[in-house]
């Protein structure tokens, strides 16, 4: 279990409280602990970011919540309280009632996330009609049109009968967002929603998500490997690495005073135009590669790539330590860091 179940966690009066989530893939080559003891909380109306290099377990974390991890993956531990109900213990019927209605998801690839053989109007209205029984086809159509308008799809009525292949990537992602919001969910999980889009469209989609959050109060869990996207949109951030949360902080604090060397590496490798490093200088990149999930190091999982690694780091893995003292911001939202340095420089961890 996480080492920080102190009072700090409770303050958020969470909509979603994931505690010690463990999801494994049992492959022929062995067990892959894709998500290993991850705790994440999302408050009502809050936008929470999850960031980390590709393969660190972000998608699996979100899929685990809704029971969408497919064979050979399996949730093997932890809990995920959503409005007081543990999602991980619900039966098929129970979790289906939540999917698409209370928690909805949008995915990275708007090209392939829509079914090519149905019109986009049919696909969005299907979501509404499967949760709200007794909605007529016509009423559903009207709601979908309204929702299309809200997510900024031009000519919403005509677009109802468009096939996915007739729309651009940006429009398709708007359709996905419309589908996700049609049942007015309490939580929207957006898994790399802009990764497949070009930069101008990305900015539009992020702006749309911010507007929606403001207008509807839907909480958002935004998953991205791109710190820029996270900085743009989120209130609080979790940094993941090799199936673990490495650092957790409010977004400004994380960017101003990152404490984990991994977070610092990610920040340093962000392209910044006109920043302190000129655009011509080669971009920093964290040395080494993401570890093989089946042969994780004994100590800190980041130690083999860390410029600050000490003997202790190789020996034993640090828990999530309170780093708020180190950053001179005690008393704010928790700032936790899975690094022995946080303990050394701060007033001690919470062990």
């Amino acid at each position, binding site marked *: 279990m996480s080492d920080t179940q102190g009072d700090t966690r409770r303050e958020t009066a969470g909509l979603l409280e994931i505690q010690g989530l463990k999801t494994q893939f049992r492959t022929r080559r062995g067990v892959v602990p894709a998500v290993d003891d991850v705790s994440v909380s999302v408050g009502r109306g809050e936008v929470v970011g999850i960031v980390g290099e590709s393969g660190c377990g972000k998608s699996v974390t979100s899929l685990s919540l809704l029971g969408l991890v497919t064979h050979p993956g399996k949730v093997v531990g932890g809990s995920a309280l959503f409005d007081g109900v543990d999602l991980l213990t619900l039966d098929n019927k129970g979790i289906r009632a939540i999917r698409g209605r209370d928690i909805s998801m949008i995915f990275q690839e708007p090209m392939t996330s829509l*079914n*090519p053989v149905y019109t986009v109007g049919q696909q969005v209205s299907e979501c509404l009609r499967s949760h709200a029984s007794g909605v007529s086809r016509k009423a559903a159509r009207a709601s979908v049109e309204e929702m299309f308008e809200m997510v900024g799809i031009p000519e919403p009525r005509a677009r109802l009968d468009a096939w996915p292949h007739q729309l651009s990537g940006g429009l398709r992602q708007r359709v996905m967002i419309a589908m996700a919001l049609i049942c007015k969910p309490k939580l929207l999980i957006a898994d790399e929603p802009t990764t497949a889009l070009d930069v101008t469209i990305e900015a539009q989609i992020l702006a749309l998500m911010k507007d929606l959050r403001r207008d509807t109060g839907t909480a958002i869990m935004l998953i991205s490997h791109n710190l820029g996207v996270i900085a743009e949109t989120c209130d609080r951030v979790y940094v993941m690495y090799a199936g673990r949360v490495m650092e957790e902080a409010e977004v400004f604090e994380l960017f101003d005073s990152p404490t984990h060397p991994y977070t610092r590496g990610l920040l340093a490798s962000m392209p910044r135009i006109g920043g302190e490093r000129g655009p011509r200088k080669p971009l920093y990149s964290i040395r080494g590669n993401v570890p093989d999930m089946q042969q994780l190091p004994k100590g800190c999982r980041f130690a083999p790539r860390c410029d600050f690694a000490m003997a202790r780091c190789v020996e034993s893995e640090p828990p999530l330590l309170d780093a708020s003292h180190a950053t001179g911001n005690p008393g704010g939202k928790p700032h936790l860091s899975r690094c022995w340095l946080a303990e050394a420089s701060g007033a001690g961890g919470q062990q």
Partner: protein
Amino acid sequence: MGRYIIKKLLISIPVMFGIMLTTFFLLNVIPGDPIALMMKDHISVDVVARVRAQMHLDDPVFIRFFRFLGGALHGDFGISYKLNRPVSYLLATAFPNTLALALSAALVSWIIGIPAGILSAVKRYSLVDNFFMGFSVLGVSMPVFWTGLLFQYIFSLKLHLLPVAGFKGPLYLIMPAIVLGWSSAGTIARLTRSSLLEVMRNDYIRTARAKGLREIAVVVRHALKNSMLPVVTVMALQVSGLLSGAVITESVFGIPGVGRIAVNAIQNRDMPLLQGSVVLTTFLVIIGNLTADIVYSWLDPRIRYGNPEGKK
């Protein structure tokens, strides 16, 4: 949609012409004199020469081809050398039998093959899956003449449930349809299974699940339609194949169909009959492919509206 079909129809005209040209010339170069086969040895050389002249067999091959083509356009394929009847009449008599056999066999294979494939995919690696896949391997690998004889032995000779052979009513159709249908049911089942499993890996299936749909709705509404594309192709090929004559089944069960006519025509060097059969077969294959195209475009809007890449 209409334009799409018309385009396909127009393309099939040169195909038809090409096939007729090729078969006509190929049949002209194969050895064996039809007249000599038609008449017995004791007929004099003079008579053979006179008959050849009468049948215009000594004309240049191009002239004969265009004469054949002209007749074919009117549905006239000449007179069978061996059976001495109009080819069109012979084919028109045999075709309904073949059609009945082909359609009922196809129906059997779809009714067994598609649900078996779906169940196997949904319950992958289960007992059900293993059972159906074993069943389909049997169907594919057992030769039709062997299953045919086996069925005749069990159901006719031992159990006296069905007539052994011949073709005098619907009852005579049951065994050949099952024997023939089983062999293609295996193919259909395997293809349905693999195609469905492939489609189930798509992102839009995850989207459908994330909407909160029941698993059955996910499979039936979101996976099945997409997974039927390759199956439809095979189904169409299979029907045109069956229509052009399930020779072995027709022989085992004594069904007077197109397949038997074609085989006899080859043995007797009965050119008009053989040409007629080939033209009929070609026509059926073209119709089969066209049907597949139409079903395709109904299943997949990307084909209906062009733009197969799915790009804007």
